[in-house]
């Protein structure tokens, strides 16, 4: 099974290179390597327009899939996904408010030393933190996090936020509404390596944290009581997994908006391939999610060129039917958690 992860890692490396070479415009890689310092269109296309976005896609795809795996285990629900936790809604609302009220604010990094980043992702991340705290508070009873409450409060919180966003969308001006809609649909468009590095740092940290809990996650899928009898501190585990995945989701939504389906679908597919041992399933899902989003974003750039499609459309188009096919093929056999 180490083999599977090795193969996936190789595929991921190939995908990164392949996706960075593919796009709506032709790229002369030889030209790109010449003259890196001065203004060179090929170098700019490769190093500024494509590479950061491919790297961001790998991080987001991997992070979404990893969060999906642990949330499905934690909540004991095969339908659990990063979009259900309430955090994504909070991040969206934060981002939207940032877009409406301070669209042109830029934050200097270390006094402008490392350039400036948009204020919007930070507003989104703040929104994610607030909603995480709220949902957490509502699901905590006598110091214990209840999966059902977590699921319900997340879903209800998200629908409430969706209504707030639709309300804001209907009171802002026409062109602004269009911009908000695009932002909500999600995009990996970025040229800032700083943003990419920030997301990778978050994802790696969160992923390692979750991976370290692999064995406990295996046990908790047997049921809370069984896990407790086997020595798992279920209360602490639930809290830690919730906080870790919420932070990851908040960071991801804040830079790329809502990119759905990966967190729901990739974990199920990988469970069919590598089984339910989270120590293997987590890295396998991370790698597969990265590969999937990498290619989905490349399709989003190419399919209607020169127009760019929202990448969430591609993930849903590819993911939905494929997932239904898997369900059909599995017949009555329940997708094992």
């Amino acid at each position, binding site marked *: 099974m180490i083999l599977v992860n090795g193969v996936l890692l190789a595929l991921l490396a190939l995908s990164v290179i392949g996706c960075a070479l593919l796009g709506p415009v032709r790229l002369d890689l030889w030209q790109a390597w010449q003259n890196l310092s001065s203004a060179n269109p090929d170098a700019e296309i490769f190093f500024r327009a494509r590479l950061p976005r491919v790297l961001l896609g790998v991080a987001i795809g991997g992070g979404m899939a990893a969060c999906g795996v642990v949330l499905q285990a934690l909540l004991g629900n095969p339908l659990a996904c990063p979009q259900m936790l309430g955090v994504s809604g909070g991040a969206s609302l934060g981002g939207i408010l940032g877009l409406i009220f301070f669209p042109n604010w830029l934050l200097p990094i270390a006094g402008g030393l490392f350039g400036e980043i948009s204020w919007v992702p930070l507003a989104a991340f703040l929104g994610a933190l607030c909603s995480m705290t709220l949902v957490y508070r509502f699901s905590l009873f006598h110091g214990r996090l209840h999966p059902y409450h977590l699921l319900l409060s997340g879903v209800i919180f998200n629908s409430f936020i969706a209504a707030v966003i639709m309300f804001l969308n209907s009171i802002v001006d026409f*062109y602004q509404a269009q*911009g908000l809609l695009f932002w909500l649909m999600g995009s990996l468009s970025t*040229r800032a390596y700083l943003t990419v590095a920030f997301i990778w740092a978050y994802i790696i940290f969160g992923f390692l944290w979750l991976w370290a809990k692999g064995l406990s996650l295996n046990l908790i899928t047997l049921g809370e009581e069984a896990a407790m009898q086997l020595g798992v501190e279920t209360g602490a585990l639930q809290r830690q997994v919730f906080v870790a995945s919420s932070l990851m989701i908040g960071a991801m939504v804040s830079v790329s908006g809502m990119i759905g389906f990966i967190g729901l679908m990739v974990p199920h597919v990988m469970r069919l391939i590598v089984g339910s041992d989270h120590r293997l399933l987590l890295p396998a899902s991370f790698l597969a999610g990265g590969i999937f989003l990498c290619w989905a974003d490349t399709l989003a750039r190419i399919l209607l060129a020169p*127009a760019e499609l929202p990448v969430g459309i591609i993930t849903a188009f590819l993911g939905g039917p494929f997932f239904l096919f898997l369900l059909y093929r599995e017949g009555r056999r329940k997708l094992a958690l």
Partner: protein
Amino acid sequence: MAALAGLAHPASAPPPQRIVSLAPSVTETLFALGFGNRLVGVTTYCDYPVEAQKLPKIGGFMSPSLEVIVAKQPDLVIGVSSATDPVKAREMQRLGLKVTLISLVSINDILSSIKTVARLLGNPEAGEKLVRKITGQFDEVKKRIAPAPRRSTLLAVGVRPLVAVGGKNFIDELITLAGGENIAGNAAQPWLNLPDEYVVAKAPQVIIEAGMESERSETAKHWADLRSIPAVKERRVYSSPSDKILRPGPRIGEGLEDIARLVHPECFAESKRRNNQGSGCEGSRP
């Protein structure tokens, strides 16, 4: 021109006196024709001219309220065929209202819609006069930029995401009339989200950001790292928030001049102060 009911209008009937406008451009046209006093309802987006802001509102551009419109007892409702909800238009007709939807896709559409509205209101001469004024403004710009070479141009509303003017959009025509060449003009969509790499590959000589939220500093900063783009290198990245450019109404003549001034500033400079050098307007005359 999709005039649903306008054609059957008998010449003898009195021209409409209570009009509801379902789009900012329609409101502007009515005021420009001198019929602003006949408006009994406009959308919340109708902000020009200032008098329009004081008129009763019938809801948003995409979501006008049917009952508010009916309560105004209009004898004519004017909407835009690509924006007004056709179900709502039919509903209004069923309720006995006269609804006219005008098409505003191309410059020709805009000009002929002005004539149509003027005719509907019983004053075709006002329409002819307004159209003559606009085409006069067009000719003036054409004359100015005639000697200048075409400059490839990106016109966008918003940089995050980058939403650009595509083909089948009157603004695409305006760019061409202004002596530019829209880098996304061959796109099938009137508006499209462009990836950065496409802009780098197309190397526009002029970048104009016309979104109402745009600020010069942000627009310039957004492009600053892509120095291979001629517009960035030559500092031809402009932020020009302008309803004159974006609204398919009677101010498109002024909008055209706004674009032309950005695409070919040298053609609008005072001739005394200029000497013929660089890519100057006369300087490039063959």
